């Protein structure tokens, strides 16, 4: 359905931008509260940290990184098109370039995030 809908790359980029943005916003809520606990209730923070460092926590951590990286790269693409409208004709090339950067950096970051699970 999604692929047959005539929205094209622009619609996909917009949908991913919105989903990743709302996800990052939700994490910011959690993260400001957990850092507040470092001052207010350090024991509770350390208990929460154990969840963050668990295997499931690390999967969520990697997903957060993916949301951040996509939103950052696509955000730059939006800014480029907003301020240099002539470059909008290269939006497809910029979109593909972003995914190449995303895949390379994502693989490297994921390696470091999951490394402690196998004792590295």
């Amino acid at each position, binding site marked *: 359905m999604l692929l047959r809908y*005539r*929205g*094209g*790359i*622009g*619609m996909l980029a*917009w949908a991913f931008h*919105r989903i990743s*943005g*709302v996800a*990052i*916003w939700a994490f*910011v*809520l959690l993260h*400001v*509260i957990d*850092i*507040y*606990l*470092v*001052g*207010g209730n*350090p*024991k509770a*923070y*350390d208990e929460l*940290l154990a969840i*963050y*460092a668990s295997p499931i*926590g690390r999967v969520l*951590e990697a997903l*957060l*990184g993916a949301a*951040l*990286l996509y939103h*950052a790269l696509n*955000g*730059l693409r*939006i*800014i480029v*098109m*907003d*301020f240099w409208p002539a470059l*909008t004709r290269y*939006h497809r090339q910029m979109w593909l370039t972003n995914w190449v950067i995303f895949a390379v950096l994502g693989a490297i*970051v994921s390696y*470091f*995030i999951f490394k*402690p699970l196998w004792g590295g």
Partner: protein
Amino acid sequence: MSRSAYRRAKPQGGGFELAVWYLMRLTGVALFVLALTHYLILHVLYDPALQDADWITTVRWSSLFWRAFDWTLLMMVLFHAFMGVRTVIGDYAHGGLRTALTMALYLMAIGLFVMGTVVVLTLPKVVPAG
């Protein structure tokens, strides 16, 4: 407008909405550097498993620079994330519901501003020995 055209167009006529439009892009560029650096340091260079409350007090935030860095990141992200969600609310909610959700959103932003600023300012500054 062609089918893949970008529709979050620059608001016409100036005023508040135009200022928000520019500030979203300005904070966006700042966050590209600040948020990605923050993530790189705290999720790639250091394993989060080591970052207990003691580590934050005696290592990460024993430095005034990193406290200022993280507070600046907080200011940028509060503006960018909350104004972004405001746009989402504006797209899906209308009338009184939109007003109520937007007001609740602003109250949450003020709450997080206070919590984040309090902890940055009041967490004891511990200079590590040696």
